[in-house]
């Protein structure tokens, strides 16, 4: 065997890559008479058989997965980071302000959208509205959404079986109604992007 241009070749000059590419096909006239090719085909065929066995075994083998401790550590970090999202004030009481995290509002909007048959909610973004009450040097409003002026952008995938215009109307109504019922927030604007169609 020799190396040529970084690609290993057999004694007969053929690239191993070429032997591999045709290994599931009957041997050619050359391969039937070439000892290099015959040996290479047998060796590669054997390697493929062992590799295939390993692939199949891996998929059902619990020992080939990380321990549950790893998943718990990853999810602990994920949940901690989610809790740091912006807040949307819902009401003010003598005891203080009641608010909801932007992430919880996103989850509620995706939930509301996905209750419609043929709609798969994807991303929801609460738009940042102008905040005239913020002033230079004053308290930062970066972590708060104006609860009286909530505007969202929602992307969805739709079933190819639904009529898009009618579904858009229903979708806006559904999201607006559920969010209003759950949080008392009246949506001021709902932009919807249909970014996929799926067969169903």
């Amino acid at each position, binding site marked *: 065997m020799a190396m040529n241009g970084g690609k290993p070749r057999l004694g007969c000059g053929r690239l191993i890559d070429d032997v591999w590419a045709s290994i599931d096909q009957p041997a050619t006239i050359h391969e039937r008479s070439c000892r290099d090719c015959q040996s290479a085909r047998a060796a590669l065929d054997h390697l493929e058989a062992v590799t295939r066995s390993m692939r199949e075994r891996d998929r059902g083998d619990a020992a080939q997965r990380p321990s549950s401790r790893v998943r718990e550590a990853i999810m602990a970090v994920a949940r901690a980071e989610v809790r740091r999202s912006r807040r949307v004030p819902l009401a003010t009481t003598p005891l203080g302000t009641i608010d909801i995290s932007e992430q919880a509002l996103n989850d509620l909007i995706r*939930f*509301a959208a996905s209750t419609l048959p043929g709609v798969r909610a994807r991303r929801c973004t609460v738009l940042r509205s102008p905040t005239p009450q913020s002033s230079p040097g004053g308290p930062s409003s970066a972590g708060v959404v104006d609860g009286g002026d909530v505007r969202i952008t929602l992307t969805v995938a739709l079933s190819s079986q639904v009529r898009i215009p009618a579904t858009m109307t229903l979708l806006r109504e559904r999201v607006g109604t559920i969010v209003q019922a759950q949080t008392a927030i009246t949506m001021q604007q709902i932009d919807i992007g249909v970014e996929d169609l*799926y067969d169903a």
Partner: protein
Amino acid sequence: MASDRTASQPESSRGYAPASGPESERGAGPRAGSVQCTSRAAPAIGAPGHQAGAGPALHDLDQATIVARAQNGDVSAFEWLLSAHEGGVFRLALRMLGDRAEAEDIVQETFIAARRSLPDLAAPQSFIPWLYRVATNKCFNLLRSRRRHPAHPDAFDDGSVPAGSHDAFAWGEADPRHQGDTCGGLCQDPALRYEAEAQMRALTGLLQAVPAGPRACWLLRDVHEFSYTEIATIVHLPESTVRGRIARARRILAEGMQSWR
């Protein structure tokens, strides 16, 4: 037998149909905004799932939707992706590094980094190659740090040839009694099953003798079944270089396995 076919899913479907073209509609409702329709989604996928708490269960959704939700901060969607792909990432790291604890560290670092970078992923359908790229880079970084410590030498690039493998080597004749009898965990015969397990252990051991670059490319192709194009993206190399590395790894492994034939 592998050729350059489109990769199959490591543990869930990776199929994705191309965009079907834009449509748009402006509807009624509370100050209706824009509606844009840009592509056609993949069929639903099957993998370990969790109830999203909204509409259909996550395992009934297409992967692009699940990735998009995870990008949007949906913890359930992220956990679904973790369940679906932690095994694959772990096996890649384990065979790259040969150390279970280090492989678990790679899984942890990969998914934490992936979660933080998810919002920057432009195309949700490229999530899986993107995830493996993060993991592969972390494996390479760890192997490079090992090379700086003499106690853990590890050949990295294509230049080194493992002991017992040299260009003048001629592949021997196969023992016809053993042709094609490797049957992995599916064998009913205990003797054959034992032999199959021994061959898989031998292959796993041999892998550590393959330089890290070809080893990664071979694992991604022949074990994780990515396409050559996807691997080129994952390892950031031209496809021709990837093909060369895979051929080189196959040669080393096939030679090393010949005593089992």
